[in-house]
């Protein structure tokens, strides 16, 4: 359990370093090609950062509003409240705000940049299906996302990937529309091979970055599972809950591509088989259950 957590954290950081490297390389090559055209890149990155910050600080409110979630107090659902309170005692963190979503599809999510500003939400569909232990497993997984700063993490990676995409896009457009080459009095750098390399990178980098982003997302899901097991010391609870969720094929109505990575299982792919592999934000459920049972 501890080794899984340590390995996960290490892998996540390796992936982030990889994304950063790609970003820096891309920026450098394109900058070289343009001479001193750093202005465009700077603007693109600033834009990416600003939009990320807006999402970061306002995101929780946005997504909770979008999901038609209603906040509950202890008297509305004592068991759910108690289950979460027990976990905050185990973790030594303050209570998050708890929300319920009226939807028969079973799912749950967490938002919040740190434990002091956290919210967790669960659908009525999931609430009905789970026993107390399974519910605690799911809530532990969600709280772990907040504790592991996954929201922050996803934001960082999202900014970098977004920047890569934007820079590549900007560059490709400028090449195709012919506006990028400025002759400087000192003569431009060797153009032939450099253009090809820069072009290739500009096309491949966004794809590569996206794949890395999805890999990071999957890693963090495994990490949240392992952290949940560490909190409850009862991985079987979460394992059974995941199996129950996998068995239900209903699609969550209020989720969409933008918010899918926040949920405990991918909410917009009705059949798990489709959601396997490199292009999925979540690892396959069988694998998650297997790892939990191996702890």
């Amino acid at each position, binding site marked *: 359990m501890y080794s899984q957590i340590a390995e996960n954290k290490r892998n996540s950081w390796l992936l982030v370093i990889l994304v950063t490297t790609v970003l820096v390389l891309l920026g450098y090559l394109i900058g070289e090609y343009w001479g001193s055209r750093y202005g465009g890149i700077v603007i693109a990155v600033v834009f990416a950062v600003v939009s990320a910050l807006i999402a970061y600080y306002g995101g929780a409110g946005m997504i909770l509003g979008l999901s038609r979630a209603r906040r509950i107090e202890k008297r509305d659902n*004592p*068991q759910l409240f*108690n*289950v979460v*309170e*027990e*976990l905050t*005692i*185990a*973790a*030594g963190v303050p209570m998050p705000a708890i929300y319920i979503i009226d939807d028969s599809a079973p799912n749950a999510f967490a938002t919040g940049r740190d434990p002091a500003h956290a919210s967790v939400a669960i659908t009525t569909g999931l609430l009905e299906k789970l*026993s*107390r*232990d399974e519910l605690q497993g799911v809530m532990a997984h969600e709280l772990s996302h907040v504790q592991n700063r996954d929201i922050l993490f996803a934001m960082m990676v999202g900014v970098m990937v977004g920047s890569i995409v934007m820079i590549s896009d900007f560059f490709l457009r400028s090449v195709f529309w012919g506006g990028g080459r400025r002759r400087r009095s000192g003569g431009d750098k060797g153009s032939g091979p450099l253009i090809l390399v820069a072009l290739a990178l500009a096309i491949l980098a966004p794809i590569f970055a996206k794949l890395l982003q999805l890999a990071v997302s999957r890693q963090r899901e495994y990490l949240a599972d392992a952290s949940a097991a560490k909190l409850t*010391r*009862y991985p079987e609870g979460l394992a059974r809950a995941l199996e129950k969720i996998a068995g239900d094929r209903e699609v969550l109505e209020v989720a969409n591509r933008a918010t899918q990575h926040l949920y405990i299982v991918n909410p917009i792919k009705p059949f798990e088989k489709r959601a396997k592999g490199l292009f999925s934000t979540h690892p396959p459920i069988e694998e998650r259950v297997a790892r939990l049972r191996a702890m």
Partner: protein
Amino acid sequence: MAGWILLIVLAVIVFGFIGIYNTLVTLRKRCDNGWAQIDVQLKRRYDLIPNLVETAKGYLKHEREVLENVTKARQQAINASGVKEQAQAENFLSQTLRSLFAVVENYPDLKANQNMMAVQEELVSTENKISFARQHYNDTVMAYNTRTEMFPSNIIAGMFGFSEREFFELEDEAQRQAPKVDFTS
């Protein structure tokens, strides 16, 4: 030039020392807090039990002994002094509560009673909270103890008297084997 380098190295060492010392203090304080939290949850249980006994009394006319045991165990735990005595009293109280819940299983009317269900949920939650508080305490002790042994913080720990804390351990073998009870699946 050499003078500057020496100054920088010295500054780094001093700040390093301070940082390690402060980390040790923080980790030790978390242990204190963790220990206090266990007491908070134990006291909660005392407050909930009279309500439980009252609610169950009407239905459990033929099980007076079980109820009385719970009440007596609670009083014992409140009066206990010293860590060992209190730990034993608390364990005994947990046992009497488990017996009570086992008995309640045989009375479907009582089981279905709304008040009883609410009180039972509260008690189950409190038992869990006590466990989790102990677990959290042990986690803080592990983090602190590890830091006092690791290099280079072990040097500072030795210099300033940061000694290891004890883990909370259950004395009763039977307690260790107890399976998780799930009332609501």
